[in-house]
């Protein structure tokens, strides 16, 4: 699979289809897997593919430091590809200008990350190339299965849930790693960076932290694709996945919508219709 990946990337660079490939790689064999930006065909041997390929590389399609490289190819896992679709729907990327290399994936992490347990996109869709073959069948996850973790949490009394969030969010230092890794966080000025006047307290106090995380969650409603990068990136180990699952469940239950899954469906927050049943929108 790795050979196929390297050959594909070499060809894309050699024939000038792209100027850079965003992929996973080890700059030297003893290094951990990191995002790499391959610009020369002879460097494709740096590319790696294993269960340590965590990062959602789609984020880099929004970074000017990477866009400056020229036309790009990007390696995506099935879950990452969902972000690509949302960005396309939200007119943040020109899909025709990006070469998408899908990597069939059996899950990442040792043990597997939580998101991998209910994964039904082991093989990336809408990709220009799909490399490899997933050995894990896509989980025919029902709504109940997909949100089992959330439902277990929601079954607890409200006081207990509030105590949980107070304890967890008290550790937030507002490093904004959750925002920076998120492919859906592309506001030119994040609301927490608005300081004339201040919209959201910049203090990493319990109040300021609730304000940040609730706002962040609402901005992701119907948009978050569940790549769980925020949860992985959090240096305080806050399980933001729980908040995101809650939003995803609301979107699925009320609108029969899973973000980044169906290219035919318009985004529930971003789309406008004359037939909307809410009068205030019409």
């Amino acid at each position, binding site marked *: 699979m790795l050979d196929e990946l390297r050959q594909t990337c070499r060809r894309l660079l050699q024939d000038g289809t792209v100027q850079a490939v965003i992929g996973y790689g080890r700059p030297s064999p003893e290094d951990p897997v990191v995002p790499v930006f391959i610009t020369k065909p002879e460097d494709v041997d740096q590319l790696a593919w294993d269960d340590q390929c965590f990062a959602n590389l789609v984020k880099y399609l929004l970074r000017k*430091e990477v866009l400056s490289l020229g036309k790009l190819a990007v390696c995506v896992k099935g879950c990452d590809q969902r972000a690509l679709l949302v960005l396309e729907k939200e007119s943040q990327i020109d899909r025709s200008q990006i070469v998408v290399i899908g990597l069939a994936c059996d899950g990442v992490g040792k043990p597997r990350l939580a998101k991998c347990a209910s994964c039904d996109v082991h093989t990336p869709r809408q990709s220009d190339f799909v490399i490899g073959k997933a050995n894990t069948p896509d989980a025919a996850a029902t709504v109940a299965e997909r949100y089992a973790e959330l439902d277990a949490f929601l079954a607890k009394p409200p006081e207990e849930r509030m105590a949980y969030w107070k304890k967890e969010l008290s550790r937030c230092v507002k490093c*904004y*790693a959750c925002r920076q890794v998120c492919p859906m966080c592309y506001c030119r000025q994040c609301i927490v960076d608005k300081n004339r006047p201040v919209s959201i307290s910049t*203090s*990493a106090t319990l109040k300021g932290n609730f304000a940040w995380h609730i706002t962040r969650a609402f901005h992701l409603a119907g948009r978050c694709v569940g790549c769980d990068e925020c949860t992985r990136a959090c240096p305080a180990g806050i399980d933001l996945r729980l908040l995101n699952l809650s939003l995803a469940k609301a979107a699925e239950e009320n609108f029969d919508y899973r973000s980044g899954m169906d290219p035919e469906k318009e985004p529930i927050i971003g789309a406008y219709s004359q037939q909307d049943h809410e009068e205030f929108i019409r």
Partner: protein
Amino acid sequence: MSELLDKTDLNRLVDAWLSEGRRVAGPQCVNAKDSRGQADRIQYAWLTKAEELRLDGFIRPTNSIKEFVFPRHEKLYGYQFKGKRLELTPAELPTTEQVVIGARPCDAAALKILDAVFNWDVKDEFYNRRRELTTVVTLACKEHDDFCFCTSVGSGPCDERGSDVLLIPIDGERYEVRCLTEKGKKLLAGATTASSEEATAPQGPPVRFNLDALGEFLAGGYDRPEWPEITRRCLGCGACAYTCPTCHCFDIVDEGSASGGARVRNWDACQFTMFTAHASGHNPRSDQSQRQRQRIHHKFQIYPDKFGELLCTGCGNCSRNCPVDMGVLPVLKTIAAKK
């Protein structure tokens, strides 16, 4: 001759300090799932009982002890509008004595570095008061991981800088105790037993890069063309700075309503776009590579030029907490490889 203390007595001491009204902070499991499915997440945090204290079974906490002398959020003073008058109320300075137990040497050494910053111009009364109230009991490191690089920046697993007491493990249950300051002696007075047994100094990680080569690279100019390539994967969050024991930048903001509020200082980080944004809209560090360059220059050139030592103790938290495995070490290794 040496002084020894066993783990049970150490725990008893922690409980005694707590019952005497001191605040005690140390490594504990914060019960959060580790996102990479690894071990429990250990952070320095205030303890309510000795039982919560974790001294082994992990490399180092994912945060730093700077929080206890330089909190992430601190009120500087209050303000109240009274008609056309403005009334200022000074913030109360802390008065409670505190102990940091089980600090790592790379954390304790950072306190000396912070001392210099918070006293070179204005003597920061909040920082200094907390520092006076704090006794640091450090635990020498028996183990290291691939992120640790203390020995590459002139530190090591038994570095005594910044510590009031250094504990060196003899086995899983006993520690050799070295009281390094009067504060340390006072805290542990009568708690240890004399012995002829001495701990063997644990080994640190191998030296991972050549500091002199780095100095040459940095002295070679601010506009070196390598920076964008070296730093391209940085996503611009503050995880490195906020978990770094030596990073100390802060932002001062007013929080309140039309009738009054407080002037507070919050941690800030040089990797944020907003860090250098001018009111005009101009940003002298508009590119992530410029912000990364600043971080490395500050740690290995600007601070050393001013204060004579590095602004880095090699704890490795910047890489350990980086979502894309960057931080100081990979950057310096890349620079060294370019030489």
